[in-house]
């Protein structure tokens, strides 16, 4: 792992809200990031089914997408979310870890384009997908 990647990982894992949700950066390299989050009863959105709230999935998606932008080889100094769309394909299984993989597939001087997928233990059957555009700051 390069120094830059290590720094990006430390930066992401230290974000106060990422800490609050217990996010763990599993992989971050060259525009692709994998971040996961354990199931937690405090994150439940539907008290009847015990399924985690979409907002918690959004936070994970947003963090992972931002991490993917930060790790892109074009070397953005910073990024902020401009727009994020999430599609909830199915309910995540209560008790299972959610893992998001985001890919920053295009970067211009000012904008980064990202796609992400979230899965639970059934990795072939995504829980949610996301597309986002992010700002690119301080790029040389």
């Amino acid at each position: 792992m390069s120094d830059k990647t290590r720094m990006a990982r430390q930066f992401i894992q230290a974000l106060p809200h990422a800490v609050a949700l217990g996010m763990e950066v599993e992989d971050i390299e060259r525009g692709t990031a994998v971040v996961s989050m354990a199931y937690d009863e405090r994150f439940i959105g539907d008290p009847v089914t015990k399924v985690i709230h979409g907002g918690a999935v959004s936070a994970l998606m947003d963090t992972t997408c931002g991490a993917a932008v930060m790790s892109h080889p074009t070397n953005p100094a910073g990024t902020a979310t401009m727009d994020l769309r999430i599609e909830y394909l199915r309910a995540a299984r209560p008790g299972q870890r959610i893992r998001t993989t985001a890919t920053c597939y295009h970067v211009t001087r000012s904008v980064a384009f990202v796609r992400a997928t979230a899965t639970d233990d059934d990795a072939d059957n995504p829980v949610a997908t996301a597309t986002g555009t992010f700002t690119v700051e301080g790029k040389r």
Partner: protein
Amino acid sequence: MSFSKRPEPVQVVKQRRDGVLRALVEGVPYIQFLGIRFERRGDELTGLLPFNDTLIGNPLLPALHGGVTAAFLEMTAIVTLSWGLIWEDMESGALDLDNLDHAHLPRLPKTIDFTVDYLRSGLPRDAYARARINRSGRRYASVHVEAWQDNRARLFAQATGHFVIPRRQG
């Protein structure tokens, strides 16, 4: 009988509506986790997100985490939509006011998709949100939400989402 047409005492009306809203909101753990509250004026709801340090994304700015903003908007959309669906039964007496837990309340709407437009960074202070139900059919609803901090006219984020309306319990 003219007797029954007398308007209900205001405290009875308020107690009923506030009680149902409280049950709706308190039963959702993630609302409590983020510390979101809802204020009511008649049937109009305003989501309130009191600031705390765990909501920060980028500590250098500092700014609210984009995921917090998204969750706050989605929560406001869901609660406002659900509140709209419950309203009629609550007012007509069809809703069982003695059993106001989520096992008895109508099921919450399910999010199909949610698109957040981040207009400016969320400052480290309280945020407010209001949702407008643009369409609520038998099966689907389309909801728009706006969030602001210091100035109502200066939104820091807005969102549009589609939801599946829960089937009414028989």
